[in-house]
């Protein structure tokens, strides 16, 4: 068994809603999970079980209440749950890729630049970044006439494909996928499955959420049911 690239250790999360009288909403607790390079671990469980929250904690977007999120970053191992903001920023550039459920649209920035930006942040040259962006957008069937336009006016599916291209463009050792195939047709779902297979073969560790059973069966190395980490409403 290869050493894990990502290791979650007794991770817990709840939300305290101060505007609702301090209501505490438990999300997950006691998550322990290892993900090795080349593995695609799929988080399973019903909507609301905390799958997205787990991905967001790994990315440093949500804070963890307890536990550790250890990510191997070259010679170092970084605990995302305890790292300084600038360390997390550096991890996001070079080590952790993330495809969110929805593209966050930036006014005036064209689709091609949205995608290429993630590659230049990773450290690739502008030329290489642009070449990869073109290749990915083509592969994901985003029409070339849209590349120079900001994605604000794109359809949901087009925006999502731009988002996927952005997430896959760099060679991050760890990739987090939050329902990347949700709003895609069969042809584009197949394209995404192909991209995931390529990443796996290249040794990328992947943690993903897929609602589509067919996609899940095809990409998963194993499926982890997160309801077993459900936090009890204390």
């Amino acid at each position: 068994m290869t050493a894990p690239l990502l290791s979650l250790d007794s991770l817990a999360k709840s939300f305290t809603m101060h505007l609702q009288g301090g209501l505490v909403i438990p999300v997950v607790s006691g998550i322990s999970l290892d993900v090795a390079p080349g593995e695609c671990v799929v988080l399973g469980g019903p909507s609301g079980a905390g799958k997205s929250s787990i991905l967001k904690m790994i990315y440093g977007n949500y804070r963890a209440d307890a536990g550790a999120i250890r990510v191997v970053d070259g010679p170092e191992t970084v605990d995302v749950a305890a790292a300084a903001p600038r360390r997390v920023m550096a991890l996001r550039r070079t080590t952790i890729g993330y495809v969110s459920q929805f593209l966050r649209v930036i006014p005036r920035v064209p689709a091609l630049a949205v995608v290429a930006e993630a590659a230049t942040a990773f450290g690739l040259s502008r030329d290489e970044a642009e070449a990869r962006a073109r290749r990915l957008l083509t592969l994901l069937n985003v029409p070339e006439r849209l590349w120079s336009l900001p994605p604000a006016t794109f359809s949901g599916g087009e925006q999502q494909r731009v988002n996927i291209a952005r997430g896959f463009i760099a060679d991050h050792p760890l990739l987090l996928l939050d329902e990347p195939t949700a709003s895609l047709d069969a042809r584009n779902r197949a394209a995404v499955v192909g991209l995931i297979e390529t990443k796996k073969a290249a040794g990328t560790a992947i943690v993903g959420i897929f609602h589509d059973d067919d996609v899940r069966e095809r990409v998963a190395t194993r499926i982890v049911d997160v309801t077993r980490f459900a936090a009890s409403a204390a």
Partner: protein
Amino acid sequence: MNETTMTDTPLLTAESLTKYYGARIGCREVGFELYPGEVLAVVGESGSGKSTLLKLLSGQLEPSDGRVLYRMRDGVTRDILTLSEAERRFLFRTDWGFVHQHAEQGLRMGVSAGANVGERLMAVGWRHYGKIREEAESWLERVEIDPDRIDDRPTAYSGGMRQRLQIARNLVTAPRLVFMDEPTGGLDVSVQARLLDLMRGLVADLGLAAVVVTHDLAVARLLSHRILVMKDGRAIETGLTDQVLDDPREPYTQLLVSSILQP
């Protein structure tokens, strides 16, 4: 944002900054470190102490307690209150920029746009008229102002153009740190978007560090890496920008985030 601009020594350090206005507190024990290439947004409502903090950081106000450290170009970190007059001038004219909410405060309204940009170059020793004009033209283009307007005074410019001119004036000397006070305040929304995108690009391309004071959380999300939420003069919550905005912990931050209207 480039790896090369991120070094391991902070550029600016605020240590327990406190400011009393008589008995009233403007700012209380605020501390943080800012690294090269990092953009920090300071958010909060009017009267929360944002502007006081910005003035303390940029040496325009003397703190009642605490201090501000800045790493000079020679690599030596200095307390900004102990700098000589010449060193302070160097910071204000060259190594720092200050973008005011009202462009009129940051521009000289009685002279041409070209002179507004060229003046900062002359302050750092540029003497050749042709070169100064050429550099001013190139900066006007960078901030999307038609170089044909170089001889016009800012009084003949629209609000958005004035703000972009102010940015050009500030960035022409390649500062390492820029302070911005509500840079998009008072502008039309479409003008704001253009300005934000422009600033976002410039900050990333030039590897600038910046402290941006804003009450607009959308501006903070778009421009900043980290955020500091102020209330009653205190920094009540701080962290990665998307973390604080998507998973706010403090009651006041939750209130701020939940109060945004979604179009």
